[in-house]
């Protein structure tokens, strides 16, 4: 069993080669805050963006799609804590997300608990689950770790599908019983509150991930990604640090599950599938693993494309193409999978690396009068 080598991120460009500071340089630290404010006031806009969204920006359908995109942006950022920042390839991350979704749903619908208790219990349960399973799975490294986490996640999928005691609703899923929920979170008219909830979740995850990766612990995690043996030689226990990262990411995913459960109003078995973990991986790689905003952008973009490509695949424009083109194009996963493979080949740093890569091109364009 050899340790799989994880490529280190590209080295920083030295100052003398770095592009000159643009006039935006002073504003840059505040851009995330500006983006957050803009995202927060989106529901007040009635702008119509034909081709991008089906209705005006503040219509419930659009807001729900945006909310799902934001939740997955947060999920991808949490997953990147494992993959991009610690170099752990987990294929079982969907399990903790599903624990949040199904935990909330079962506790509210079957046990009749108030929402805040159910949410707290679900998040605590998901975190404990991540700690326990992580403790076993982390005895292996590299690819074996990936397979073991995949097998554990499969247990979750089996439990949900087999529907023991009729708790999970099996293949049909389990609609959320909204009678005991706070009225502000129920109904189509209140979609905007769910949107803000999703935005708050995304902000929380980004905040936590950035704080952790900036802390001394985060430096150890980056060290584990680059060379695990060296961390061991320094006298730090790699196992414990990896377990902390794994547990934290699991807890964040469970919290995302709670929000997602409220947005879609229930749980369905497809969120326990290994495909969800694979799509998280796709999101992170498309955005740029280990970067500040890449995973968030990747998650938002992936979910948006997944949704829109489904609509696009059944549109007339595609149906009028010859069969050998229209059939594959009607499958969003085919398009996303292909884009992902091309991304691994042609821009391994993800979307966020494009700026540095395109820089020479842009400077030549600017020089022209």
């Amino acid at each position, binding site marked *: *069993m*050899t340790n*799989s*080598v*994880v*490529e280190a991120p590209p080295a920083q460009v030295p100052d003398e080669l770095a592009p000159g500071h643009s006039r935006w340089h002073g504003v840059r630290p505040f851009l995330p805050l500006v983006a957050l404010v803009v995202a927060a006031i989106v529901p007040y806009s009635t702008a119509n963006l034909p081709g991008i969204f089906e209705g005006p920006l503040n219509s419930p359908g659009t807001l729900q799609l945006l909310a799902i995109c934001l939740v997955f942006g947060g999920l991808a950022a949490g997953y990147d804590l494992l993959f991009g920042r610690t170099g752990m*390839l987990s294929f079982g991350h969907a399990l903790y997300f599903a624990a949040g979704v199904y935990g909330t749903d079962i506790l509210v619908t079957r046990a009749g608990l108030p929402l805040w208790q159910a949410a707290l219990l679900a998040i605590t349960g998901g975190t404990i689950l991540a700690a326990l399973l992580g403790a*076993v*799975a982390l*005895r*292996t490294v590299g*690819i*074996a770790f*990936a*397979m*073991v986490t*995949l*097998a*554990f996640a*499969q*247990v979750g999928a*089996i*439990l949900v*599908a*087999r529907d*023991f005691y009729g708790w999970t609703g099996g293949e049909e899923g389990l609609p959320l019983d909204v009678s005991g929920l706070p009225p502000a979170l129920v109904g189509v008219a209140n979609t905007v509150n769910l949107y803000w909830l999703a935005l708050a979740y995304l902000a929380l995850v980004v905040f936590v991930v950035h704080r952790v990766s900036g802390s001394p612990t985060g430096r150890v995690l980056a060290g584990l990604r680059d060379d695990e043996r060296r961390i061991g030689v320094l006298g730090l226990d790699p196992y414990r640090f990896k377990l902390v990262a794994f547990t934290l990411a699991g807890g964040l995913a469970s919290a995302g599950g709670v929000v997602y459960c409220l947005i879609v109003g229930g749980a369905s078995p497809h969120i326990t599938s*290994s*495909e969800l973990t*694979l*799509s998280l*991986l*796709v999101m992170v*790689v498309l955005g740029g693993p280990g970067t500040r905003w890449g995973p968030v952008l990747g998650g938002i973009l992936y979910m948006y494309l997944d949704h829109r490509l489904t609509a696009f695949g059944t549109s007339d424009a595609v149906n009028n193409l010859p069969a050998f083109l229209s*059939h*594959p194009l*009607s*499958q*969003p*996963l*085919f398009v*996303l*999978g*292909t884009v*992902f*493979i091309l991304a*691994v*080949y042609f821009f*391994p740093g993800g979307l966020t690396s494009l700026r540095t890569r395109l820089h020479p091109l842009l400077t030549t364009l600017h020089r022209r009068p």
Partner: protein
Amino acid sequence: MSDVVLLTLTGLGLAALYFLVASGLSLVFGLADVLNFAHGLFLGVGAYATWWAAGNLPGAGSDGFGFVVAVAFGVLAGALVAVLVELVLIRPLYSRTIEQVLVTVGLSLAGVALLQATWGADPRPFPRPAWTRDVTGVLGANVPNAGLLLIVAAAVVLGGLLAFLRWTRYGLVIRAGVENREMVTALGIDVRKAFTLVFALGGAAAALAGALGGVYFGTVSPGQGGSLLIFAFIVVVIGGMGSVVGSAYAAVAVGLLQQFVNYYGTSGLGDLCVVGLLAAVLLLRPQGLAGKVAHA
């Protein structure tokens, strides 16, 4: 008594299916350190190519010698797709393991979607020779012939693989490569040829699993490979990465455990027990039953 015989033989049939998928996975992993998520795609290609050949290929059919031709066509198609994948997608990323895994992940998503786009998401009836639907009496138990066919096929593949690894030059290169790839490369042997060969072998075995699995289940659907693949992964980990014999032992253990527990316990409990077995093996022997040695 007859219950036990029946469960043992159907469990072995399931084990045969797992072994056919896992043997290729294990070899590819042992030699190239690539966890091949696209392996389920090879299985799907084999199943659909057999299904297509039985209906459209001259000389092939769903009975007698025609069925053998159809299965041979499916296996060839699987091997061909596997070689193409290795040459076009895996080889340019030589020794960049994580990227190779990512590419196979993308391929598994896109490939299954492509199968679905071409033949629809619903299961299609699989052409089966009439005799595979019958049962054979073994010690008072009526065992389905499709399961027996799987056991025979897996035994033949196991024997063939072991003979290949033990008595041919390329088998020697593969065994040595699993043991220590850098050393083989340093001796001036081109390991990349061995990669392509191992991919072809694994693809062929997975395609055979797809074709015979179609006979066993009676239908063929795009998602068939995915569910089998997870258990095949478990078999590979329990058996020890890169060991064909270890995969065979682990496949038998997993198949029998699953059948017996699903029959005597509640349905679905067997699948959980398999994962429990995996956790136990990991805690007691993290390197798997056989460790990373391609002992023939």
